[in-house]
């Protein structure tokens, strides 16, 4: 983490690079951004505690203040590292895939809510698998059928558990 084990030449090169981009990069380091984000959110959450009784507000307020103090500590620590020219670790090697995956999952949840569980699942399972590299059509078909069939047999048929039918069709 601390780059102590790096050969000297590399760490010098890092420092040189860091110098040139320092001011621009300092604030967009992931940990710095996280710390700032936590401080902002925690401060926002502190506002409603004012309307609570003191004893009700005690624990949440203590935790929020704790979060703010700890985030400031994290911020200082990370900025020290920035000053020392330490490069932040990249969050992910493929941000597009990550965002895509999140988008698909959220889309799936929304679809379940609005157009119903079984339809959405029948589309989502092969779609997600296909989008992320599993392209065997037979495999996709079998997997989807097994998942849907098993869920229907166990939950719907066996336990008479209702899944969302889709808000769009309700009214």
């Amino acid at each position: 983490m601390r780059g102590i084990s790096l050969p000297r030449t590399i760490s010098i090169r890092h420092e040189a690079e860091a110098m040139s981009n320092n001011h621009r990069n300092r604030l967009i380091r992931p940990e710095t951004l996280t710390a700032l984000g936590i401080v902002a959110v925690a401060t926002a959450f502190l506002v409603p505690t004012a309307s609570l009784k003191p004893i009700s507000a005690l624990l949440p307020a203590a935790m929020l203040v704790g979060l703010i103090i700890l985030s400031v500590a994290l911020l200082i620590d990370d900025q020290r590292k920035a000053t020392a020219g330490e490069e932040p670790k990249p969050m992910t090697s493929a941000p597009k895939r990550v965002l895509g995956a999140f988008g698909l999952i959220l889309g799936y949840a929304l679809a379940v809510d609005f157009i119903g569980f079984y339809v959405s699942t029948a589309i989502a399972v092969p779609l997600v698998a296909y989008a992320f590299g599993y392209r065997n059509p037979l495999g996709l078909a079998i997997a989807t059928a097994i998942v849907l069939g098993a869920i229907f047999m166990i939950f719907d048929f066996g336990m008479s558990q209702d899944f969302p039918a889709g808000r769009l069709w309700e009214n």
Partner: protein
Amino acid sequence: MYSDLLHALPNVVAFANFAALVIGVLAGIVVGAMPGLSATMAISVLVPFTFGLDPLVALGLMAGIYNGAMYGGAIPAVLLRIPGTPAAVATTFDGYPMAQKGEGGFALQVAVVSSSIGGIASAFALMLLAPPLSKVTLLFGPSEVFWVAVFGLCSIIFLLGGNPVKGLISACFGVFVSVVGSDPIFGTDRYTFGQLELLDGIHIVILLVGLYALPPVIDLLETPLKTDTSNSDKLGTEPIWRTLPRMLRFWKTWLRSAAIGIWIGILPGAGGSMAAFMSYNEARRTSKTPNTWGNGEPEGIAASETANNADTASALIPALTLGIPGTAVAAVMLGGLLVHGLQPGPMLFRDNPDIVFGFMWQFLFGAILLVFLGGSLATNSFAKLLKLPRPLLGSVIIVLMLIGVYSIHGPMFDVYLMLGFGAVGYLMDKLKFPLPPVVLGLILGSFAEENLRLALRIGRGDWSVLFANTTSQILVLMTVAVIVGPIIKRRYFNKSANGPDEKA
């Protein structure tokens, strides 16, 4: 009482009742092994369905599911680093590193044997010691329970990971999430933003699925398809009779963890995750080689799996005798008992001995069955299932997560909440914020607060009520010892390397 116990036995081994138990254990293993599905969810789906069943069939199913799921949760915890149930979080610490080293098969065998031992110990505690142990529960009023919660929260110290600041941020986040909902005393809203769904607080399963299952799923999808010809592909399974001798050296851990699990079980409200964390910490603390912990030490799996199964039956002791469930699952099971007209209380044992004692036998048999059913067959087939092509596995887990969260209460709101936690969990995972403190903070934060405030009301605002009796004082001393002990130890014995490895 013991003659009642024997009298109940023939009924338990009757075909339908025993079959229900076998099905329950198998179903439990499946449910536990599916990331996203939990024992709480399975039993809450089952309870209304059991209304038309014979009591022992219904209870057998539930006892089986409970036992099976507590072990089943270890399967994805070991193979994917996704704890299948909240109580399996501590199993990931050493289970996943073992799987990466190609010892996943051994890890799962340790898990199944330990689970079974924990379950058997717990069942015996329930069968033989329920009345005296329920007296122990009575000793724990609000101020004592508050100290238990504080004691549990202190074990967060050992879960902080490499960077204490980040660990504490995680813990504060967990505790903060626990206060969402109605105030424990006045019932006023805290951070519910007018959402009725938030009024009862955030269910542990929602947080767990979001934090622990979503990030690995994203990882499954993120990494391009090829990968995985490494060690983690090999499970390294050997027949259980050959691996068993290698496990016998865990006997101390088994005993200690079973005791911890039973003890946590009889205290209201804390539950299996706390038992697993505490026994993991205790086992590591007393280990001669604390440095191997967190890097694939099978004893760590033994500790957490013994404890989380040891609290299954013992959590039913306060549930059956006093009506206060020891764990979230026991709470749902209590509902299953009420459906069959089994009212908790001392009279329960007198009025329905065949059913109650039969239920206890079912816990014992369930725990024993675990080794046979969970041993090689189920474990191997699951291990195969979890090695489906990654994108396919990822998309199936997404569906399971949705079902698992949706089926607990019903509203889609919970699903969106889970996705929100998933996003937070992903960022935390990438930025190396440890997740276990969040789980422990959520479980124990509001629990500590509620009991503190009840104690203060009983003391009419006087804080000295917290130290007023012996049980409280002992708990305070234990808490202090847990915090101060390691500091002293580190100061005097610091010459040997850099202390315990904190790669939680």
